[in-house]
């Protein structure tokens, strides 16, 4: 909403700079987006001039060389002018050298085809007070040469661009902003410009209106004007429209715009001679009913939309846009001026469905009040008479009348203090509310406050009144206190701590956390060979790349890995922790699941190359497993990697496994299938894992103390040859089971294959066995016994051959 200060000052003119006013408005609830200058600067150079002589330019047929008296006893200036209408004897608007034009250019003495020009004789568009460039402005001859032009024409004003919050449609007009300015600054407020009504009540001869849907059209007002002289608007009116950002069109249309900008309520001017039967009907459209709007488009309506029809059918979409058929035109002489009130939510829906937004619809959809319609009509009446020389036909069409009687709300002193946390004297509340045009009466425990019609929607409860008091009377001096809390205490839940610990564990191992997009493209899924997975899709994505929600973190991890590789990173070690989105299995209506996943990818050297190790090992499955172990061991959850039952399609079939947490499948680990990795431009192994971290929640109990220092541990090595088909984990499991609790730890520390010495298809695994008893030092015999049991079990259960140590 653009508010020219010059216009605002007609109704409320606080003695503040525009900057200070903007700050005061911002601190009381009216946000100022920016302050702009509209029009010219260096005003001392703009004066009234008298054209003394005007001769044809010796070298240019279309230019005149004029001698202009610019007053103040100065020598007349020679000014070259291109306007066809310039003539000696005219009183004109002159910009002298040193002037700054609306677009910011400075004016200097110039030479036009060899003739010096000391400034410009001005046309409207050059002052940004109109769009006319065909001729210069000719002023009233009574004006004295040298008179500052700014005293004659509104050639310079600052303009506030306000962000009007949706609860304040009353501020969508200059007068509404003046009210707010009055309340915020205390500067006096002029009476509303619609106070004087030149009109009368009663029927209007030759025009009538029927409203068939009063629920959607609370009020419809109109007046008829005869002898309308369609033409240009006066300069002052055009200047204000220009400053407010509206192009002047013709006096009747300009009046509708001017009144809308001042009162907030849109209007529509019908050519009464083109209203078939002089009769308008406001009704719901029929499904599929069509109408051509002012912009030349044919619109198809439905039965929830309201239209205005005459004897020949629809002419306007109510509250949104007028129709072409009854538009005013150059030969219009009779005008039916309409100002109506509509049900905002319905206008919003119509505008949305038709994809048609207008100045009118954006105002109406915020819910204007019925009283505003008649205010606007009164204001338009004055201007039709003054500006267009029109004759007002007696009578006023007013269907629906004013809105409901004003509400009175009790504002309790205790509630004001209790909600704000600061004492506001009742007299202060009364003062603020009165300035905002609320009615105020004393009540036993506070005030009885009557809401003015133009605030009816916004203010309906005590809390709304407290907001008014707070924004104008409490915020600036509000103390800063802390809640009493009543015993509430803050802490993270176990799950939240687990999530933090997981990310910390991965970062500590050298992986960088990324935050990827929740969105993914269908192409992503295709590249990962998971296109068949059900996904959550967006109805209105910003692009095809963001059309669906991810089911895995791997896509964003690979995108980021690729980006970093392209930007020169050799080693890429990344992880992400966040939600994936899985559609519910069956029934529609259930929300999709959002499990919290942790995923990682590693590729390139496991550590940076140095002069000591020029070619570090490339990250592979076991590097990923190392990161996984670092993660899950630090979380202290029981886990293992199992043979994949059904390997993920994007993984290397021989180098992938299933992550198992607490016995339950929790995700995958592996090297990417080389063909998949290649789609992200990787030629070397890319390894990673992804798991559902929520499965680890609740598995972590506070550890119990065990005595691991009083008695020594005994370590034994044992090598066993088994078939390649036997996983190492199984060997360990068999050993553990055979040895019982005295075997506290067992791990593989060497893997050896040699077809000639141990047979093809076999592998020799060297185990390190750690024995300890909690209550005594183990004897050699005890350890030897366990070792024999382990050897026997490996032979029996896994057909292993234990090699002599």
């Amino acid at each position, binding site marked *: 909403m653009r508010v020219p200060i010059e216009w605002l000052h007609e109704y409320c003119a606080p003695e503040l700079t525009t900057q200070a006013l903007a700050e005061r408005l911002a601190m009381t609830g009216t946000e100022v987006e920016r302050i702009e200058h509209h029009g010219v600067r260096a005003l001392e150079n703009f004066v009234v001039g008298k054209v003394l002589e005007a001769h044809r330019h010796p070298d240019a047929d279309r230019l005149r060389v004029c001698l202009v008296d610019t007053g103040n006893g100065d020598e007349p200036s020679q000014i070259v002018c291109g306007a066809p209408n310039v003539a000696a004897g005219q009183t004109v608007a002159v910009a002298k050298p040193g002037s700054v034009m609306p677009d910011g250019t400075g004016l200097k003495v110039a030479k036009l085809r060899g003739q010096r020009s000391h400034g410009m004789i001005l046309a409207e568009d050059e002052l940004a007070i109109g769009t006319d460039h065909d001729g210069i402005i000719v002023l009233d001859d009574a004006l004295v040469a040298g008179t500052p032009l700014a005293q004659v024409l509104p050639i310079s004003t600052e303009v506030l661009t306000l962000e009007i919050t949706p609860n304040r449609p009353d501020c969508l007009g200059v007068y509404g902003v003046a009210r707010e300015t009055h309340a915020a600054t205390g500067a006096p407020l002029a009476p509303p410009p619609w106070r004087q009504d030149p009109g009368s009540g009663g029927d209007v001869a030759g025009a009538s209106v029927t409203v068939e849907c009063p629920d959607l059209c609370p009020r419809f007002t109109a007046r008829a004007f005869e002898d309308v002289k369609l033409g240009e608007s006066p300069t002052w009116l055009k200047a204000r429209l220009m400053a407010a950002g509206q192009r002047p069109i013709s006096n009747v249309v300009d009046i509708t715009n001017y009144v809308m900008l001042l009162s907030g309520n849109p209007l529509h001017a019908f050519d009464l001679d083109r209203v078939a039967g002089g009769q308008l009907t406001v009704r719901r459209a029929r499904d599929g009913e069509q109408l051509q709007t002012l912009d030349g488009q044919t619109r198809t309506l439905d039965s929830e939309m309201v239209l205005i029809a005459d004897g020949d059918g629809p002419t306007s979409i109510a509250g949104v846009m007028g129709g072409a058929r009854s538009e005013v035109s150059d030969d219009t002489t009779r005008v039916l001026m309409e100002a109506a009130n509509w049900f905002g939510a319905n206008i919003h829906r119509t505008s949305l469905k038709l994809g048609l937004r207008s100045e009118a619809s954006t105002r109406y959809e915020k819910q204007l009040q019925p009283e505003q319609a008649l205010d606007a009509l009164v204001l338009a009446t004055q201007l039709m008479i003054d500006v267009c020389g029109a004759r007002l036909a007696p009578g006023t069409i007013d269907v629906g009348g004013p809105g409901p009687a004003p509400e009175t709300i009790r504002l309790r002193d205790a509630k004001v203090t209790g909600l704000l946390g600061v004492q506001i004297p009742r007299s202060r509340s009364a003062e603020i509310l009165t300035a905002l045009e609320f009615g105020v009466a004393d009540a036993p425990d506070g005030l009885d406050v009557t809401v003015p019609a133009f605030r009816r929607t916004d203010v309906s409860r005590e809390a709304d009144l407290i907001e008014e008091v707070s*924004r104008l009377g409490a915020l600036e001096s509000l103390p800063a206190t*802390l809640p009493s809390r*009543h015993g509430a205490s*803050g802490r993270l839940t176990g799950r939240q701590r687990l999530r933090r610990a997981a990310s910390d564990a991965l970062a500590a191992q050298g992986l960088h*956390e*990324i*935050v990827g997009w*929740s969105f993914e493209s269908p192409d992503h899924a295709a590249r990962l060979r998971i296109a068949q997975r059900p996904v959550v899709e967006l*109805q209105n994505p910003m692009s095809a790349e963001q059309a669906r929600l991810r089911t895995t973190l791997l896509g964003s991890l690979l995108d980021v890995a690729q980006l970093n590789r392209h930007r020169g990173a050799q080693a890429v070690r990344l992880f992400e922790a966040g939600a994936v989105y899985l559609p519910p299995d069956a029934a529609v209506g259930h929300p999709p699941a959002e499990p919290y996943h942790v995923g990682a990818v590693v590729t390139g050297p496991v550590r*940076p190359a140095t002069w000591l190790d020029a070619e570090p090992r490339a990250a592979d499955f076991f590097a990923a497993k190392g990161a996984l172990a670092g993660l899950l061991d630090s979380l202290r959850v029981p886990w293992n990697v199992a043979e994949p039952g059904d390997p993920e399609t994007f993984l290397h079939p021989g180098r992938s496994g299933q992550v198992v947490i607490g016995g339950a499948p929790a995700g995958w680990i592996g090297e990417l299938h080389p063909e998949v990795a290649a789609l992200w431009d990787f030629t070397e192994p890319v390894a990673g894992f992804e798991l559902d971290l929520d499965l680890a929640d609740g598995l972590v109990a506070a550890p119990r103390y065990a005595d691991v220092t009083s008695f020594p541990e005994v370590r034994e090595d044992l090598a066993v040859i088994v078939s390649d088909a036997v996983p190492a984990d199984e060997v360990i499991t068999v050993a553990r089971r055979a040895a019982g609790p005295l075997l506290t730890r067992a791990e593989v520390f060497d893997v050896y294959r040699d077809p000639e010495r141990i047979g093809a298809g076999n592998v020799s695994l060297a185990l390190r066995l750690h024995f300890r008893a909690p209550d005594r030092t183990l004897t050699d015999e005890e350890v030897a016994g366990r070792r024999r049991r382990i050897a026997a079990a490996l032979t029996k259960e896994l057909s292993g051959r234990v090699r002599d140590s």
Partner: protein
Amino acid sequence: MTDTTDRIEQLRREASDAVAAAGSSAALEEVRIRYLGRKAELPNLLRGVAQLAPEQRAATGKAANQARQALEAAIEARGGELASAELHDRLAQDRIDVTLPADPLPAVGRLHLMTRTRREIEDVFIGLGFNVAEGPEIETVYYNFDALNFAPTHPSRLESDTFYLKPTDDLFAPDTQLLRVHTSPMQIRAMETQPPPIYIILPGRVYRPDSDATHTPQFHQIEGLAVDTDVTLADLKGTLLAFARAIFGSDRQVRLRPHFFPFTEPSVEVDVSCFNCDAGVLPDGSRCGLCKGSGWIEILGSGMVDPNVFAHVAQYGYDPEAVQGFAFGMGIERIAMLKHGVPDLRLFYDNDVRFLEQF
């Protein structure tokens, strides 16, 4: 048999000289073998004591034994000297070029700036007595708009402002699914699961169809909600002052500016005093770019919970006449950008490691 004892004495002298003369551990070992080894003379003398005449045995045995012990002690002492000298020589040879590049242990990774900032904010509020809760990113029109008192005409409901899930045919049906545009729906969900008093913050990912230097289609917010019998707007100010000081420095001030949000009444925007300048002016006299010369930076929106919001959860113990409270919501990335001077939100989602490593 003075010959024998003389011989012992002679051997002892010879050996002592040889020990002293040994210049290396290897030479010393040769000396040991020569004088104390299996085939050496002194041990043989000792072994032969039994064959001697009884009157000679004691004297000879004693002399030989003493000689052997003395020799052993001398060898051990000399051995220690030599070992330490040799180690010294070895270490002196073991020179490295200390100016060569290091061979570091794998560098640690970093948490993403968003995560770091989120935790920093969470920890401030935990210290202030707030709990933390997360909730679904896929929400319904009811939780995202209706229960938060959004008018049916509120522009946020449009497809231009909210991502809806497929298939959506009615933007206004309460169970229509969407990606939440703010963390505020969690206010309702939190109140549905916990009666007052409630002091809670609600961090999470949110979505809006928007993309430029300060907007990305996904970003993160932290919502705050405090409802009790007596929580005031002044308490909101105090809470956010504590927050602002913890995040932006202990001499920060906050100010509340009236605004409008559907789910709070009164509603305020909160500004923090600029930490980059003095009242809008930089030390060199120029205008501060961070606060655009105003001395204040907008950091979040907030207000007192609207009674209409309580009405939606009244059956869970939130009678609008009996309880009151405040709510606030802030963008995590925005706080991080302000605090660390990051100029473009999109950097958060590029995830260039060179960017991530800075924090």
